[in-house]
C-alpha cells in the first residue's frame, strides 16, 4: 500500500438513506445500513487456528456468534468466519486484527472479501418478531432463533446470512446478502415493512 490517502469508498445506498450520527437510542423500528463499517471474512485452512492464535474466541459450534472487544464473530463453517465490528463500540480491535492478518505470512485462511461482496443491514426495534416472518421462511420463534443464532438461508428472496444480535438491548437482526441487491433490499423492506425508518452509519 502506498502512502497516498485511500479514496473514499462508496456504497449502493449512500445516495438513498440519511446518514445518522450514531447508533439511535430510541426504540423505533429501523433498518440501518452498516455496510461501510469494518468487517472481515476469512475462510479455508488455517482460519480457526490463526484466530485462536490472535486471542479471538471462536464460537464452539458453527451457526453461533460470539461477542468480544467490539467485535461480533459469526461462525459459518468449521473454517469460515465473518467478523463484524460492533457499531456501539470502538472498531480498533477489528482494525488491528485486519492489519495483523495482512502482515501474517503463514497459514491464515483466505480473505473472503466479506467487506465488499455483502451488504450489511441491521433491522431493529420492538416489531422484529412480527417483521421476520414477512422476510424469511425459517423458524424465527425465540427458541429457534435466539440471541447469538446464525442462519444461512434465504431472506428477501435471496441467499442471506441472518444473525440475531439484539444490539443495545433492543431486539435486532443483522442480515448479510449480495451487495449488488442493496437497492432491491431497501425497496423490499420499504414495501413489506412500511413502518420501518431507514438510515445508515459510516462509523
Amino acid at each position, binding site marked *: 500500500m*502506498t502512502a497516498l490517502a485511500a479514496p473514499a469508498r462508496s456504497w449502493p445506498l449512500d445516495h438513498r438513506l440519511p446518514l445518522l450520527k450514531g447508533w439511535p437510542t430510541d426504540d423505533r423500528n429501523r433498518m440501518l445500513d452498516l455496510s461501510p463499517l469494518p468487517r472481515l471474512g476469512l475462510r479455508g485452512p488455517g482460519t480457526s487456528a490463526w484466530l485462536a492464535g490472535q486471542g479471538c474466541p471462536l464460537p464452539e459450534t458453527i451457526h453461533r456468534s460470539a461477542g468480544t472487544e467490539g467485535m461480533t464473530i459469526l461462525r459459518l463453517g468449521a473454517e469460515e468466519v465473518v467478523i463484524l465490528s460492533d457499531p456501539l463500540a470502538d472498531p480498533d480491535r477489528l482494525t488491528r486484527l485486519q492489519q495483523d492478518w495482512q502482515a501474517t505470512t503463514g497459514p491464515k485462511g483466505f480473505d473472503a472479501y466479506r467487506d465488499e461482496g455483502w451488504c450489511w443491514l441491521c433491522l431493529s426495534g420492538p416489531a422484529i418478531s412480527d417483521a421476520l416472518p414477512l422476510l424469511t421462511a425459517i423458524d424465527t420463534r425465540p427458541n429457534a432463533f435466539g440471541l447469538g443464532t446464525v442462519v444461512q438461508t434465504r431472506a428477501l428472496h435471496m441467499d442471506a446470512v441472518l444473525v440475531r444480535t439484539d444490539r443495545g438491548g433492543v431486539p435486532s437482526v443483522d442480515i448479510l446478502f449480495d451487495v449488488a441487491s442493496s*437497492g432491491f433490499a431497501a425497496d423490499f423492506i420499504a414495501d413489506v415493512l412500511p413502518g420501518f425508518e431507514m438510515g445508515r452509519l459510516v462509523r
Partner: protein
Amino acid sequence: MNNRLGNGWGSRIDRNASMAFTFEGRPVTAHPGDTIASALAANGEWVLSRSFKYHRPRGVLTMAGQDANTLVQIGDEANVRADLREAAQGMAVTPLNVSGSLRRDRGRIIDRLGRFLPVGFYYRTFFGPGKNSWLKLWEPIIRASAGLGTVSLTPARRHYAKETRHCDLLVVGAGPAGLAAAITAAKAGADVILVEKEPELGGALTYARFDANAADAACKLAELRDKAAAAGITVLTGATCNGRFADNWMPVLQGDRLIRIRAAELVLATGAHEQPLIFRNNDLPGVMLSSAAQRLMRHYGVRPGQRAVVYAGDRDGYLAALDLDDAGVRIAAVVDPETEDRDGLSDVLIQRGLTVMRGCRITEAQGNRGGLHLKSVEIRDDNGTATSLDCDLLVVAGGYTPGYQLALHAGARLTSDDSGTRFSITGMPPHVHLAGAAAGLSDLGAVVASGEIAGTRAAAGLGLLPAQDLPAPVQARWRRAVPSQAHPKGRDFVDFDEDLQVKDIENAIADGYRELELIKRYSTVGMGPSQGRHAALATARIVARKTARSLAEVGITTSRPPFGPEKLGLLADTTPERYRHTALHAVHQAAGARMSPVGAWWRPLAYPGTAPMSDAIRREIRLVREAVGMLDVSTLGKLELRGKDAATFLDRIYTMAHARQPVGRVRYCLALNEMGSILDDGVAYRLAEDHFYVTATTGAVERLYAEMMLQKTLWGMEVDIQNVTAAFAAINLTGPHAREVLQRLPGSIDFTREGFAYLDGRSGELAGCPVRAMRIGFTGELSYELHLPQSHAPALWAALAQAGAEPYGLEASRMLRLEKGHIIIGQDTDALSTPDELDMGWALSRKKPFHVGKAATEQRRAMGRKRQLCGFVLPGGNDAGIGESSLVLSNGQPIGHVTSFGHSPTLGKWIGLAYAAPEDAKPGSQIRLRGFSATEIKAPVVALPFYDADNTRQEI
C-alpha cells in the same frame, strides 16, 4: 319487511347499532356483525344470484360460504361470498350473471330452452349457420355472457402480505373437536396454532343444538372457549386453511394476508359438509340446509321463513325443527324417509304439537310466479301417494359428508363399503390426525373425545407425551341419506354451480363416458366454485347405479388444493422485482446512459444523452477504435480459486492447459459440459502458484459455480472456490490511448509495453485503489480489464475519466467484438455448440489426459459436423431485412441461423456470424440467407476476424 327474531337470537349482531348498504341500488339496513346475505334475508331479500347456465334464481343454501349461490360483486371485487363477508356502511353490492335486474333477468329465457342445452351441448353446437359463425356470432355472445363477476382493468393497488410461521401443532377448525385437540396438546406443552374460518371459535356449537336440550351445547361451548383462552394457544379467526402440502406446509388465507404455516403435527378438525337433497326444483330460494337455517337464527337473529317443512333425512332435521319451533316459525310437517324412529326425537316433536310424516320423500318443490321463492312442496309416501304442503321454507337435513378435502390432499383416500352407504377416510399419513365430524362422528361427547385423542397423539408425536399406550384414533363410518330417483320432468339438480341435473349425468353415461373422471370432464360436474362439495358423492352414486357397479368400483374423484377460492394477489409475489446494480450504476445514470436489464442485472446500452441511440453507438465505436473508452463489465462472473489443488482443478474443468500456466499470465478458459457442448468461457489470471482469479460470463457464472462445487466434491480436491462476482467491480479500458490514460494516474503498476505484455496480469495500486489488471483481447484494441473491490469502483472510474477516458456501452461493445469475430456465449452458442463448430479446436489441449467433456468431444468429432459458424458480409445494403435469427438455407432447407449481425461503422459494411452447412462455411463460398421480408439473398463468407486480421492493434 323485517325478519328479525327477538333478543336471545343473533349472537353475532349488535342490535344497538345500524348501518346501510345497497344491493342493486336498493338500500338495505344491517347491524354490525351481519353478513351481506344475513342482512338481505332480514330485509326479506332471498334472491341473491342467477345460476350459471339456466339463469334460475338462487338464494341461501349453506349460509357458510360452501355454495356459489351467494357470489356477489362489491365494486372492484368480484366473486365475494355474501354469506361470509361482513356488511359495511355504504357498500355497493351488485349481483352476478344478471342481464337487467336480478328479479327480471333477461337471461331467464334460457331456462325455458333447457331441453336444447343438454350436457356437453357446446361440443356439438356453434358450428353454423354459415362459415365463420363461431368467430363472428357465437364467440362474442358467449364471451359477453360467460363467467361470473367483472374484473376491473384499473384496480386500486391492494397490499397482500405474505408471512411464514412455524408451530408444533396446527389445528384446522375450532369446533368442539378442534378446540379439544388444541387444548390437550397445549397443556402438554406444544406450541399450537388454531385456525378457524368463522369469526368466532366454536364451530357447530355456535349454531347447532346437538340434543333436545339446547343448553348442553351452550355449556360445552363456554367451557371449551374458556379453556382455550387459558391454554396460550395462538388463534387465527376469519382464516381458511386452503390446502395441505408436503411435510405439513399449509396455506392459511386471512383477508389479504397469506400465512404459510409449517407444522410438525397437524390435526384436521374440519367438520362435515351438510348435503342437499335431490328433487325437482331443489334450487329454489327458500330451500336451505338445516345448518343454514340454524346459522341464520342463532348467528344473525333472522327468521328463515314463516311456514316451514323440515326434511329429516338425518337426526339433525329433528333438532333443527326444535330450533325453528323455539323461534316461532310455524312447521307444517317434519318429513322422515325412514319408517322406524331411529333417533328417538319424534316424541319430543309430537309433544310440542308438531306433525311427523314417516316413510315419505320430497319429490318436488314449487315456486311462486317467476320461480323467485318456494311456495309449496310435494311429498310422496312409499305407496306413491302425493301430498302438497304450502310453505315458504324447506329445511333439508340430508346427511353429511366429512370435510375430507385436506385429508385427501395429504394422501388419504375416501373409501366406501359396497352398498355405498358407509364411508371412511383411510391411509392418513404420519403427523396428520383426524378428529370430530371430519372423522365421521356426530355425538358431541364422541366428537370432543376424538379431539382429545388427536391432541394427545400429536403431542406424543412431538415427544411431549410418552408414545406407548396411546389411545387409538377414532373414526366412524358415516351414513349417507337414501338417494332419490331422477324426476321425469328434470330440474333436479346434482350440481347447483354448473346447473347439472340427474339426467345430465345419466346422459353423459349414455354418450359413452362411463368412468367418473371422464364424466367429470365431459359434464363439468364438480368443477364450479363449490368444487364437488355437494355433487361428488351424489354423482358417484348415480354412476354406480347406472353402470351397475358398486360405489367402491366407481370410486370418488379426489380433492386437490385449493380447498376454497383464493385471490391471485395472495399467490402472486407482489413484492418489488429483484434487480442487481453494479457499483457504477448511479454514475451511469448521471452520465445519461440508457440502461437495460440482463437477467437481474442492469447494464448501460449506450450513453446517448439527448442524441438518438444509433448516433451514440456509432460515436462510441469510433471512440474505442480511435481514442479510448471505458466499459463497466462488473457483471462478469468472477471466481477465486485458492489452495494447493487450484491449478490441477482448473486443468480438469477447462479445456486449455492451466496446470503450468505461469504466474502473472492470463489465459483464455473454455468450459465444456460432459456432453462436449460449450458451457462458458472467460480468462484465468494466475496470481500465485496456488491462487487463480477466473472470469466467467454474466449469465453462466451461477451454473458454472454449481458445477465446480459438485466436481470439487467428486474429485475430492483441496481447493477453495468462491464466487466473488459481486465483491469485485471491473472496468474494461480499451483503445489506442488506453496506456496513456493509465500512465497519467498514480500507481504501482508498470504499464509500459515491455513491463505489461499482451495476456499479462498485474496486481497493485492504481489511483489509490487496489487493482488486478489483465491485458486481454475482445474489442481488438489495446485493452486493460481492471478488477477491483466494488466499493472503490466509483473512485477509479472518476480518476480514469479525469485522465481522459470516456464511457461506452454494451451496444458498441457487441459491435466491436463482432468486428473481431469473437463469440458471445449464449448468443453465438446454444446448448449443442461444440468448439469444433466454432473453429475453436485450438482451445482444446491435446496433451491433457482429461478435462470435462473430452471423451464426448472425441466421440462427436467422429460423428462429423452438421453445422459450422462462419463470418459473412452483405454485398450491399440490408434491403432483405437480415437480422439475428434469420435462417440460413441449404438446398432449400433451414440448416442454421444468423447469431450476430449489425452494421460495422469501422468497415462500412453489414457483417455477421451464422451457422451454415460445413461445406458452405468456407471463406470464399456463399451462404443463402432469408431476411425477415422473406427475400432470400446470397452472402459471401469471409475469414475472421473482419478487422485487423493480424491482431496487431491489440498487442501494441
